[in-house]
């Protein structure tokens, strides 16, 4: 996909700003052990414009600026390619830089686990998690399936009869969130038929009956549910979500399937970021997360609040990665 040139313009202006900052103070903590950014902060979206990472990065940078929680400029640049790998490699090369960070979500685990990136979450400095999104499993409105158990029972009897479609490649998020819930319901995870459509045809294929189930994010389903085109059999959230349509979606847990999946989204710094800088950003992200302005942003995009500080985030990610790795191994993917 074609990339933004405005990001280029922004990065040029970032360089200009950076040139104005005093370099001696740039990468070190102040004398009292506190850190204050001294030049423009570069936020990398490892994807093209318009997607989830890009939107999150831009909204966070905008609200940080408007609320003046962080006084320095924040500029978002896009580094697209390899499902994130190019952007991660770019940030990885900025070891110790306290004025650089990137936005990430579960692909930061899936992509390296599938052998497509040298860098995974453990190679970076987790700053804070900000939001949570959840997966949804949808079928056509006139489908015979009324809930997840209907679907999974059929899959247990005749796994070949059901095809699941998602936007990401096998072994990545749309696939694995389904595998995770289905396995907990007793479906043989090695027999799940999954096809990927990266050209925007996934929803189309569900609507015209070519495939049976759409595994996607809850946000992608709302308009179609309101229009009566599809129904959501279950979502991967732990508890009922709030919101006009969202609150109607039953969770897998409510349906007796004890499993969930969070599409977390947060920010990471380059490896070896100074501890004082981590503390600084952690506190600023918390302030942002609690602000009214950011609550409006969450509402606008249907995101859920899920703040985690650096340490908690690290532990959470470790646990997630372990689970995903063993699941990938079980279905014969992963490296």
């Amino acid at each position, binding site marked *: *996909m*074609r*990339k*933004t*040139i*405005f*990001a*280029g*313009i922004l*990065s040029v202006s970032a360089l200009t700003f950076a040139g104005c900052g005093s370099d001696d103070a740039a990468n070190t903590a102040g004398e009292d052990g506190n850190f204050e950014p001294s030049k423009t902060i570069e936020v990398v979206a490892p994807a*093209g*414009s*318009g*997607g989830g990472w890009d*939107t999150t990065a*831009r909204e966070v940078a*905008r609200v940080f600026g408007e609320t003046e929680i962080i006084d320095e400029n924040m500029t978002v*640049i*896009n*580094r*697209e*390619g*390899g*499902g994130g*790998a*190019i952007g991660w*490699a770019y940030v990885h090369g900025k070891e110790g830089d306290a004025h650089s960070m990137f936005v990430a979500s579960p692909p930061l685990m899936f992509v390296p686990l*599938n*052998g*497509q*990136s*040298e860098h995974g979450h453990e190679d970076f400095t987790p700053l804070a998690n900000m939001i949570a999104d959840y997966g949804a499993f949808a079928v056509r409105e006139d489908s015979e399936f009324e809930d997840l158990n209907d679907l999974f029972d059929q899959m247990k009897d005749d796994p*070949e009869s059901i*095809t699941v479609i998602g936007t990401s*490649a*096998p*072994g990545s998020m749309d696939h694995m969130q389904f595998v995770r819930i289905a396995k907990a319901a007793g479906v043989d995870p090695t027999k799940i*038929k*999954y*096809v*990927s*459509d*990266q*050209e*925007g*045809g996934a929803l*189309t*294929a569900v*609507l*015209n009956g*070519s*495939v049976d189930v759409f595994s996607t994010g809850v946000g992608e389903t709302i*308009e*179609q549910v*309101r*229009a009566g*085109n599809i129904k959501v059999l279950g979502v991967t959230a732990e508890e009922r979500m709030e919101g006009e349509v969202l609150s109607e979606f039953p969770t897998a847990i409510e349906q007796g399937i004890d499993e969930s999946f969070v599409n977390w989204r947060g920010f990471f710094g380059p490896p070896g970021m100074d501890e004082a800088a981590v503390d600084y950003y952690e506190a600023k992200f918390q302030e942002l997360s609690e602000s009214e302005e950011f609550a409006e942003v969450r509402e*606008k*995009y249907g995101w859920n609040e899920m703040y985690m500080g650096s340490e908690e985030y690290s532990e959470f990610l470790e646990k997630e990665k372990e689970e995903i790795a063993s699941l990938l191994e079980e279905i014969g*993917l992963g490296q």
Partner: protein
Amino acid sequence: MDAFQGLLTGFQVALSLEGIMFVLIGVIVGTLIGMMPGLGPISAIAIMIPITYGMDPAPALVMMAGVYYGAVFGGSTSSILLNAPGISGTVATAFDGYPMAQQGKAGKALAIAAISSFIGGTVSVVLLMLLAPALSSVAISFGPPAYFALMFMGLTAISSLSEGSTIKAMIAAVAGFMVVTIGIDPQTGTQRFTFGNVNLFDGFDFLIIALGLFAVAEVCMLILNRKNRSLSDDQKLGSLKLSKADLKEMSGPVSRQSFVGFLLGVLPGAGATIASFISYIFEKRIAKNPEEFGKGSIKGLAAPESSNNAATSGAFVPLLSLGIPGSGTTAVMLGAFLVLGVQPGPLLMTDRPEIFWGIIASMYLGNVFLLILNLPLIPYLAKILSIPRPLLISLVIMFSLIGVYSISFNVFDLYMLLVFGALGFAMRIFSFPAPPFILAFILGGMMEQAFRQSMTISNGSLSIFVDSPLPLSLLLVALVSLLVPAFLKWRSNRLAYKQG
């Protein structure tokens, strides 16, 4: 709300002072960016997103739409004048547009492109207005088997894109297929021909290939032939005026391909690029004198130009009525909608009629603006050709590099541009045609994915392609288009033999 009432609401938005102003800004920015080789609608829309922060959504989106179709409108200029496609949707424009310019008919070629674009754009807005709600069901009727059949049908045209050796055309097409397999395979997540190089994981962007094979290769040819004055300094703009015969020749392709382009634009994944190729091939197939195609045929220029603009409006059908972005450009458009707090989808028409109809109404206006802006500019644009050759060559190379770099800000892509430039140059010298390569590259990737999706769905049974009427009928059309020319040739040979 019926369409008529809706359209009235739409015109209230579009014809307000604010509406007119933003349509005008949108189309001007779009045309200018589209004219630069390599910079196209995605860059143009991405530039405008931050500008629209905090704006009222209706005028902001009217402006964004203007940028989009403005860029497609302007994209033909550099294809025609320099053989350097402005955007991927205007690659096919160069096939006949550039030869016309070389023959000293640059002005005429630009005028034909502008008028064809205008008609294609306007016809498709009318179709969009009348049919958007109904067409959303067409957009979703294509499942993986039907996509496979559609792409297969497009590929049967490879032989008609070749001048001269069919074998060389086939070799070029196979090379195109091979190049499109590079990258991570979406169906398995396996890396293919990437040599572990992260820069190759996503494969090649279409524009790198198009600019390499056309613009860079053309520049090499210009350098090689610098003593040959075939493209001489006294090359004239030529008359802008189109004769009655010219208009008559255009009328057929334009009226047919406006519809074809629109319908292909409606299908998610097809878009302006595929539409322009299929329209070109379509016209060549039915033309009385197909041998003129590729040598400056008016039909060969009018067909892709009306089609790519029609496809642009068509692409708004799945975007506005289903919330499905059918292409990279409409995906960025969708992002722009969301930033403004508007969710495109089946309910947009009832929830936000002023936006739905405002965009449609503004397109009538935008297309008129584009025509009025572009026609008087033609003499100035054509002056590009009188820039001294060394300077012109440097400019083309520079713009190609900028265009490619703006795709991903990745220097690796620049090397790849040069690699494909060298390949294109070699193909020229050994007279392998570039269009079959390009066509195989565009259609091949989608065809493979659709085939394998179908195979997974059907558990490996090929009957999925003949079980439902849509893929079956598309495959039959493909078969007919393969067999009829062969049969006609066989019969004429036999008649000749009998008579001889």
